[in-house]
């Protein structure tokens, strides 16, 4: 187990771009990267209306210590024409995060709610979001069925937004009628040190 004090670089990229981004990060001194399959939502309103908004995305997480400069990774990734998407940096030093003016809102719910959450968030001013399919973990006293622990499937929605829109988005998601039931999910937001677009 490698314990790092530093920052977390988070990139949402086009389908199958994870390996390329990871190798860029490694060349710049990062020790490794973790890739997660995800779904992104397109910005075209017509496509969304037709239900064609989702695109496959690769989410990559890179842990950086103080010896690695996140800026070089980001600028290298920006220079690579094969990489498209967004990049965000979360610093363990909260003060640095606060200055940039960007926030990341994360919502974790049982499966099936992501489309409605994204719809509400967009109405409140969000540009886009990334959805990850996940599952809950079982507590020690979890429910059993046929001798097996049963846990619900989850969807995790991540939305990067400017600071001033954070409140609106949170309250819009929170007022969704489908999320009124108790125990349906959780939501949190955190500050982001840096936010950059890759490609295009």
């Amino acid at each position, binding site marked *: 187990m490698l314990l790092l004090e530093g920052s977390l670089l988070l990139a949402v990229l086009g*389908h*199958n771009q*994870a390996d390329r981004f990871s190798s860029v990060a490694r060349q710049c001194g990062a020790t490794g990267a973790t*890739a*997660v*399959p995800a779904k992104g939502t*397109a910005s075209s309103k017509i*496509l969304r209306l*037709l*239900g*064609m*908004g*989702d*695109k*496959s995305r*690769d989410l990559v997480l890179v842990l950086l210590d103080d010896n690695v400069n996140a800026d070089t990774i980001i600028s290298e990734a920006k220079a690579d024409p094969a990489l498209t998407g967004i990049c965000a940096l979360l610093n363990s030093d909260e003060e640095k995060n606060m200055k940039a003016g960007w926030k990341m809102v994360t919502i974790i719910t049982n*499966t*099936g*709610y*992501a*489309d*409605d959450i994204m*719809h509400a968030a967009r109405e409140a001013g969000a540009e886009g979001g990334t959805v990850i*399919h996940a*599952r809950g973990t079982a507590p020690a006293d979890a*429910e*059993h*069925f*046929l*001798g*097996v*622990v*049963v*846990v*619900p*499937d989850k969807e995790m929605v991540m939305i990067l937004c400017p600071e001033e829109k954070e409140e609106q988005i949170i309250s819009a998601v929170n007022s*969704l*009628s*489908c999320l009124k039931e108790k125990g349906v999910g959780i939501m949190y937001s955190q500050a982001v040190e840096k936010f950059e677009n890759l490609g295009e």
Partner: protein
Amino acid sequence: MDFTQKLKETLISVVPIVISVVLLNFTLVPLDGLMGPFLTGSLFLVSGLSLFLGGVDISMVPVGQKLGSVMALRKSLPLVLFLGFSIGFSVTFAEPDVSVLSARISSLNPAIDSSILTFMIAVGLALCIDLGLFRALKGISLRAVLICGYLVVFLLVYLTGQGAASMAFDSSGATTGPLAVPFILAMGLGVSSSTRGAGESSFGLTGVASMGPVLSVSLMVLLTGGSSSAPSAVASESAVSLGSVLLHVLKNTAKGFAPLLLAILVLQFTLLKFPKIRFKNICLGLIYSFAGIVLFLSGVEYGFSEVGVKIGQTLSENYPFYVLLAVSLIFGAIVVLAEPAVWVLTSQIENVSAGRIRKKQVMLFLCLGVSLAVALAMLRIHFHINYLYFVFFGVALALVLSFFCPPLFTGIAFDSGGVASGPLSTSFLLSVAIGASGSAEMSFGLVGLIAISPLITLQILGIIFDRRKKNAAS
């Protein structure tokens, strides 16, 4: 749903078929008047397949997964078994391919009543879905279930002879229609991800389900006396207009789609309760997948079947056997790329393995397998080899391999058996075989071989994968 990405993927999968048929047209098999319908059909294939795949992504997959998850969370075994049985039964009973197959079998063997056979196939599949769900919930090893199941199959098939064996294995390919397979795949995924996390038992439900029809057909033949396999005439359809093909396919597909649609609607208001926007997207997705599969099937029926017969006939009559063999090797490899359910399965594999197992690798080994299967089927037609040998050695080898292969890949392999034998291979490849053999009776069994071969090649991929991983770790 990313339509442009789907379009790109489908183009990659259909273009090789078009190129090779066009090449054949200018070299070995002049197609004359068939070329126009073939090219039109290919356009239908590309547009239909991408629409279908995009639609499945936002309808069948999320609904099936959520259903599996909800079934596990309700923690009621009777509910799970009831839902599994009713969904399995209704989608099979309504599947047009099944009634076609039953009619064909009963025409070969008058002792079998075709409507009873359809009923039996549906019950067989539904019971096996229950078995597969129970296995996924309990975490019983897939290998054990498959070995037991196939031992019974072997016994029945041995008692009934090769005529029945080829029918039985063909039926397992035909029964699971392209709309039902993605749903069953997703349901299995949902159940297992809620109970033991995505992984070992994520796949295998389709594989266990495909044993059902094999069991019921061979049981049926056994009970009604041996098969009197009289060769029937090749049904030769004269040139039909695109409009009438579309209408015919639309009617058939709607019949197969209706019970699934009804089940999804009933489930939405009772168990699933998707919120507004998601439900809207699911409805759109259902429309897309329906429209897409209608376009796809029409394209196949209008442009591909006759071309297949013509190619098979010309090659076997005018050229030495090895030419036909070479062409079948190539066709086998490229046709599987354009099977609708194959793309659904491979993207699910990519998701479950978090991108570790790539679509390309799975596709490559599927191509190898199907290519081999088609070539073997041609060898069998040419040399009149007993079909039972293929079944016994093929399935036995697959079961032996499961001892050396990671369980995840065993599940994937047995699922892809049912997936690889989709509408394109049952019409286009089967037509080539019918053309080559001159009789429908000898070409029976081709679809079954296509369903068996991936069991072997994908498990070999699994063994290679495991080796690599171990080497990388040490």
